[in-house]
């Protein structure tokens, strides 16, 4: 319904759900505000936005007053001016004028308002209240209670955006103050900090400060997880001051998680490599970067000469840019001449592709993340979103708060979203997901809640699916998975009835045993409920690293050129041969696992590892160690001397994301720009420049002078990145790859006409009792420390919040072994053992334990074994004993 009203003599038509303030702003009419924030519900505490309405005795706060038909509103008058000035003056009674030493000076809303109203003195002689300084909920933020004007924005943000309800305005009158009531719930995301209009909350991290107008602000893409948040790197005299956001940019809509906001100080770590290193006898000795590059080029040439191209392998990176990964595979495929190239992206995409391509035609995130705001049910499986992808969790909370989204959480662990937030929380035993997913499908069909039209129009093989799932009765599901029958039935009713249901899944599914069967079953679930090609529906595989998607797309893969063109396809070979001007091998290469297996047998002689630390990040560290020890020559390009780099013959210093240009592709298939805000440190260079130089030294100059040149070539040869220009990425804030007309896949139907229900290859878990290793040990990342390391403490702020690793054990299991909270324990698997402290509680189901992989000093990788293409990197059978 639309409403007509008059504001300042201007006739305005707007919708009835708007407030007067919103209607005025839409029409370019300025009303001063202080507590209002466009991301939050109106607070109505500051009284600056008061307006007069004809026929209403007292002025009203325009931020909280809805529009009404035919009202006549005045926004500027002497009376209003006086009210606003008085409101400001009353704030100044308590607010200290310590602007010269305040972080917010120059970007303080109160300062701006006082300046705008020209208030030069305060006549009120009221007593100034000295508020006590009490600890804030996170050490990353400093609270200045006397600067607080009690606008309530931080409280609202903590409630509505992060949903954690840590903060509240406590007490009343003179005593009222902001207090962290439940600090243990704080995620340290800094949402409160980002909405504070004054300097009452400040960044407690960077010792370097600069005023807004002195700082250089560079908009770029975060390099932590795969969500692809847009953030600004603020620098002064080539040093990072802090990270801010723009509400208008990116899927994060101005929000960030703790890593995005506070996890970038590693850029200035003392441990950054400023020089190249070369091995002389036992030691790595600093050397000139050009010398290192020419030595690497010479040595690679020699090894190629002596053993042939296939004695060589390249490992690319899931956190380097598309341009770097593209140029790397071009170098390995053309100059060296082998398809032995891969990255950690394949641990994710191998199972995704194998599961979903036969069913849907593509194994990718189907919808943009913002579609979650439109969903009415979301199933979240095997991922602790708050721990790793908080921005996705924020979207779910927004939808729950504003749109009545009903979450179904599936996780054996208690996570922040399970208790209190979830409508249904199911806790399956590990590696039984295929069973409950098919049980859910059976329940939905038996209740007649499947989308019959969709199934008829868009799918094939439904009858065989129906027959297949018959065996998964709720009783059987409960017996195998431990999920309560009622929970399964409730979940089926919710998801079956949903107008738009989303399925979000993470490494808990992708990295488990029989992951292909479980993921394929999820594909079936989305199909029977008609949730594909639909707003608010969709399948959302959550990828770990910032450019996991891009690394896969760029052909860091032994089977495909960029854009999934098979390396055995004659047409593709011809095209790339012509473009690159060198012969291309018509043969599949070795996958990552095979590269390490062959190297450990001495069959791979040399390797370039670019921007990856497989000794820590690959699930089988013993294998990687053996492989590297057997190499004749290893080049590592990295910005730190990582555990892997320590074993190299040449280490060439690369740069961090803050020092280079390029693009990342997020998990929602969005290509976004990375922009340099800082100069490269010491002699370090962008990884793409290093590869181009090695190529040039080997006699094959590539003729790229900027990342833009590389992107232009990518767009030319990569079908799914076609028709996108670098300029477009700048102008439109990114572009969607794999596109038809919209960012949503399958809106125009499925590739090949219809989607398929395929049940033949679905494997069911084998019930096996493992007497020696009875515990299912699951591992996960954690955004507080992933790859930044607690030993090295390169990101010092994050290490404050989450300093050490531990293994989480169920209290009943611990009791049997006499393990108490805090005891040191020894974890053993078939492949190795390690010891660390235990945390004992009931947050995890019996028979399961959980551990973080991301602490560099705890070598979790040695517990795992990698001997096949699809590695169950999330779960392993183990025993846990008191040390």
């Amino acid at each position, binding site marked *: 319904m639309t409403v007509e009203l008059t504001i300042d003599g201007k006739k305005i038509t707007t919708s009835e759900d708007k407030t007067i303030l919103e209607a005025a702003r839409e029409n370019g009419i300025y009303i001063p505000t202080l507590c209002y924030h466009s991301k939050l519900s109106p607070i109505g505490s500051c009284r600056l936005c008061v307006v007069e309405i004809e026929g209403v005795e007292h002025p009203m706060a325009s931020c909280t007053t809805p529009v009404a038909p035919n009202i006549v509103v005045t926004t500027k008058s002497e009376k209003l001016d006086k009210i606003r000035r008085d409101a400001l003056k009353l704030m100044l009674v308590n607010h200290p004028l310590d602007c010269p030493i305040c972080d917010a000076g120059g970007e303080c809303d109160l300062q701006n308002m006082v300046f705008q109203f020209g208030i030069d003195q305060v006549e009120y002689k009221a007593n100034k209240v000295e508020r*006590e300084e009490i600890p804030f909920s996170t050490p990353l933020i400093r609270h200045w209670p006397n600067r607080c004007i009690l606008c309530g924005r931080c*409280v609202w943000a*903590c*409630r509505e955006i992060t949903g954690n*309800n*840590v*903060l*509240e*305005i*406590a*007490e*009343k009158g003179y*005593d*009222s*103050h902001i207090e962290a*009531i*439940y600090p243990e719930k704080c995620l340290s995301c800094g949402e409160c900090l980002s909405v504070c209009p004054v300097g009452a909350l400040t960044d407690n991290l960077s010792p370097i400060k600069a005023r807004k107008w002195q700082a250089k602000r560079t908009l770029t893409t975060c390099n932590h997880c795969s969500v692809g948040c847009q953030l600004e790197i603020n620098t002064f005299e080539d040093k990072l001051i802090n990270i801010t956001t723009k509400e208008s940019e990116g899927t994060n809509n101005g929000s960030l998680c703790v890593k995005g906001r506070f996890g970038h100080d590693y850029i200035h770590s003392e441990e950054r490599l400023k020089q190249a290193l070369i091995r002389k006898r036992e030691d790595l000795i600093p050397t000139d970067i050009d010398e290192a590059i020419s030595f690497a080029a010479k040595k690679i040439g020699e090894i190629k000469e002596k053993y042939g191209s296939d004695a060589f392998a390249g490992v690319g990176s899931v956190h380097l840019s598309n341009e770097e990964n593209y140029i790397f595979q071009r170098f390995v495929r053309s100059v060296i001449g082998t398809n032995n190239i891969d990255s950690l992206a394949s641990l994710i995409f191998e199972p995704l592709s194998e599961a979903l391509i036969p069913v849907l035609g593509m194994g990718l995130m189907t919808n943009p993340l913002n579609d979650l705001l439109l969903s009415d049910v979301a199933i979240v499986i095997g991922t602790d979103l708050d721990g790793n992808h908080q921005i996705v969790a924020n979207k779910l909370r927004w939808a729950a708060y504003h749109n009545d989204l009903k979450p179904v959480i599936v996780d054996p662990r208690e996570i922040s979203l399970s208790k*209190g937030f979830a409508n249904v929380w199911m806790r399956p035993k590990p590696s039984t997901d295929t069973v409950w997913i098919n049980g859910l499908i059976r329940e939905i069909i038996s209740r007649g809640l499947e989308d019959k039209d969709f199934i008829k129009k868009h799918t094939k093989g439904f009858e065989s699916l129906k027959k297949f799932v018959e065996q998964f009765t709720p009783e059987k599901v409960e017996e195998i998975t431990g999920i309560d029958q009622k929970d399964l039935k409730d979940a089926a009713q919710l998801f079956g009835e949903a107008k738009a249901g989303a399925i979000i899944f993470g490494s808990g599914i992708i990295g488990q045993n029989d992951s292909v069967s479980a993921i394929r079953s999820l594909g079936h679930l989305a199909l029977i409920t008609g949730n594909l090609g639909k707003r608010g529906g969709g399948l959302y595989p959550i990828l770990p690293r910032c450019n996991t998607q891009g690394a896969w797309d760029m052909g860091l893969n032994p089977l495909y050129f960029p854009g999934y063109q098979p390396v055995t396809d004659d047409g593709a070979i011809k095209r790339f041969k012509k473009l690159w001007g060198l012969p291309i091998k018509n043969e599949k290469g070795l996958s990552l696992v095979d590269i390490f297996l062959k190297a450990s047998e001495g069959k791979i002689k040399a390797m370039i590892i670019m921007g990856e630390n497989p000794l820590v990040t690959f699930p089988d560290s013993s294998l990687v160690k053996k492989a590297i020890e057997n190499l004749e020559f290893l080049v590592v390009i990295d910005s730190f001397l990582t555990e892997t780099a320590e074993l190299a013959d040449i280490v060439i210093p690369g740069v961090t994301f803050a020092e280079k240009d390029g693009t990342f592709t997020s998990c929602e298939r969005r290509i976004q720009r990375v922009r340099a805000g800082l100069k490269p440190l010491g002699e370090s260079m962008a990884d793409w420049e290093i590869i181009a130089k090695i190529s040039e030294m080997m006699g094959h100059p590539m003729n790229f002078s900027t990342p833009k040149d590389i992107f232009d070539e990518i767009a030319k040869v990569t079908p799914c990145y076609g028709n996108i220009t670098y300029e477009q990425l700048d102008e439109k804030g990114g572009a969607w790859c794999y596109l038809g007309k919209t960012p949503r896949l399958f809106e125009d139907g499925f590739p090949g006409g219809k989607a398929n229900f395929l049940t033949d290859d679905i494997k069911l878990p084998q019930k096996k009792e493992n007497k020696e290793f009875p515990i299912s040990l699951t591992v996960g990342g954690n955004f507080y420390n992933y790859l930044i390391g607690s030993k090295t403490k390169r990101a010092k702020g994050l290490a404050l919040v989450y300093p050490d690793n531990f293994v989480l054990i169920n209290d009943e299991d611990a009791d049997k072994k006499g393990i108490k909270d805090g005891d040191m324990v020894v974890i053993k698997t078939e492949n190795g053992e390690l010891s660390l402290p235990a945390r004992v509680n009931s947050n995890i189901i019996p028979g399961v334990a959980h551990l973080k992989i991301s602490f560099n000093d705890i070598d979790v990788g040695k517990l795992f074994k990698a001997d096949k293409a699809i590695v169950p990197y999330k779960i392993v059978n183990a025993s846990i004993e008191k040390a």
Partner: protein
Amino acid sequence: MEIAAKTEENILTKESMEILDKIISRYKGKRGALMPVLQEAQEEFGYLPIEIQNYIATQMGIPASEVYGVVTFYHFFTMVPKGRHTIKVCLGTACYVRGGKKIIEKLKNDLGIDIGGTTPDRRFSLDVVRCLGACGLAPVVMVDNDIHQGMKPSKLDKTLEPYK
């Protein structure tokens, strides 16, 4: 500033949960139910420690921080256990000028507690009120429901004696 008082014993027992459940169930689905629920809970337990607030919040689906905000906002609610007897000293204008301030100082000193506090033996809680509407009797002290008029510091001991 009144920070969450430490409860002496575990107040959130099975019985107290049942009592709270009963109170909450009477207000199920009603808007603005938090205030009466807190009121009844305080009548029941004498005060609203953080454990009780948390339980009410979870059962009513309200953020616990919001409950805390309400409890600390209203003077009526308290997070400190109350004594068996509540002393309210009037500091309205008439009582103030006739020596109410002296009375409060003496009480604070004798009982060894601040305004809003409770003696360790839980005998007395001390509060201040702004006018009891008995200005002719100033200065006035109210103990539980009894009004004591024309108070003087020297009369206090005797006045409080009957309240065991």
